[in-house]
């Protein structure tokens, strides 16, 4: 007996297996469209990447159309191999869903922070007194990155900035660290940008709470490294921005 025609069940199963790669591509395409249209991609990528994501979306649409114009035959491999490959391809979407609304915080800081010493004793070698600030009386609203980049010219001027709080038991009671992550391409290459805030009667802030600090910017020496310090007169906890707005960008 030779070459019996496949029965209906077998035809249906071959059709479903043939459609699986298309479903996978459609799922990835949907995710990309959502990331672009909702601006959620900025929680993972530099904003300039929108064009690359758009190009990827167009190419994916082309792939889907081309596969649908083909014979829709199942990919090579057993049913288990085909299904497991499809699930693997969809795993990033599972993590995208579970990480939605979350941003990088203190744990990421502990892994990305690079200091000159293994342990940083939080003692300043000089502790300048507060000085008169900007003559206009208004605080310059700046990002942590701007302050780090321009600290020499900003020294002695009033500034205001925002960031996450990091404080540990080794820090003096009147000091905390403000930090944010600066990105060049994606969240994997972020570098923490930070400064210290000093204020009498600092109070207690929950780790990773978002605060706005305003005061006079000074430069201190910390184990041979110059660090900006805001001698704050106001320190206010405010609602954090959404994850996509928490990064700074090179």
């Amino acid at each position, binding site marked *: 007996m030779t070459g019996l025609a496949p029965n209906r069940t077998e035809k249906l199963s071959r059709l479903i297996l043939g459609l699986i790669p298309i479903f996978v591509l459609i799922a990835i395409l949907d995710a990309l469209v959502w990331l672009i249209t909702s601006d959620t991609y900025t929680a993972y990528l530099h904003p300039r990447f929108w064009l690359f994501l758009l190009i990827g979306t167009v190419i994916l649409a082309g792939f889907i159309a081309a596969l649908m114009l083909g014979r829709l035959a199942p990919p090579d491999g057993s049913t288990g191999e085909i299904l497991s490959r499809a699930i693997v391809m969809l795993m990033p979407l599972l993590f995208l869903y579970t990480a939605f609304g979350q941003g990088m915080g203190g744990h990421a800081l502990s892994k990305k922070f690079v200091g000159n010493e293994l342990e940083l004793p939080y003692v300043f070698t000089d502790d300048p007194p507060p000085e008169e600030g900007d003559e206009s009386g208004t605080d310059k609203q700046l990002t942590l990155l701007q302050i780090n980049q321009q600290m020499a010219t900003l020294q002695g001027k009033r500034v205001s900035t925002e960031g996450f709080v990091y404080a540990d038991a080794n820090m003096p009671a009147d000091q905390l660290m403000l930090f944010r992550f600066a990105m060049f391409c994606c969240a994997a290459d972020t570098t923490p940008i930070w400064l210290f805030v000093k204020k009498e009667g600092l109070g207690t802030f929950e780790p990773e709470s978002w605060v706005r600090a305003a005061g006079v910017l000074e430069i201190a020496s910390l184990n041979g490294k110059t660090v900006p310090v805001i001698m704050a007169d106001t320190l206010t906890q405010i609602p954090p921005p959404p994850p996509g707005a928490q990064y700074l960008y*090179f």
Partner: protein
Amino acid sequence: MDTKPFPINCSCNHGHQHHSTVPSGQIPFLFIIQILFIVATVGLVVFYRQHPAFSTLSITFVAIFLEALPFMLLGSLIGGFIEVFVSAEKLTKFLPGTSWRTIFMAAGAGLFFPVCECAIVPVVRCLFQKGLPLGAGIAFLLGGPIVNPLVAFSTALAYGYQWAVAIDRIVLGYLLAVTIGILVELFFTKQNALAAGLPDNGSTCACGHDHHAEHGEHKRSFFKKIVASFQHAAEDFLDIGRYLIFGAFIAAVLQTVIARGEMAAVAATPVLAILMMMLLAVVLSLCSEADAFIAATFRTSLPLSAQMAFMVLGPMLDIKLILMYFQLFRKRFIIALSGTTFVLVFLSMLIKYWSQG
């Protein structure tokens, strides 16, 4: 050897014979890896979702995947067009007569054809199938992601427009790519380097069928060729994409577990500093446009040769790339290529340190 009709979705509508490389009755190794990966990732989501490290892991994993995805798609598409539109004869005419000159040309091709390491793997796969010599393909694979204007600019930017650092990186990347390409050409052939099932006769596509020869009598319309290009590209992407996902996940886990600051502290001597930065490059799996910014954070604590080791090795060899290489090369060749690349980068950075500091 198991044979079954190989269904192909190309518009020529020809069925093709496929020869499975797995003896019948055995479970393919890749299938086991896929199952383990699914179990591990679902387990993490179910049991560790509330752990602070999970955010770092998830965000890093998704970020690496999303960043690489457009380039992977583009690389697959370029590969698809090469499959359908470029015959082996055309490629052979374009290349210089000797394989040595081809190696020198391929290592610098990124200057005119800038690609990142994610896009380059599917492109090189197709070029191998069209007859590109092995050494030249390796030189392009290693040199392409470094020897390109985008990387030069981002490196200069990261180092405050010190163009000497950028030029250093490009030149070192080029010389290493050429050297490794020549070594590969001397000691390996396509037969013992390329993965089983990857045809190396220079005139076939990944299904083992020569479209150009078969369709000599009845040419396909331009539209059908475009559709065929996209179909090949889609299948390529689905094939290689899972290696990208494995690599991105492992890189995310390592970034979640390993602290950069602790690794910097280990680097007490220049030799250790170079080694440590090379390991960090393999672990972090960053793109070649961004890694200069990470290297630059070590400016005040590590010698330039250690920073350069990070910037040169990373685009050539990282977790993500090593896993993608499994789709292209045999295991023994991957080990040899990885080992040679690692050793040569290390030695060249030692020489750099001794000569320049």
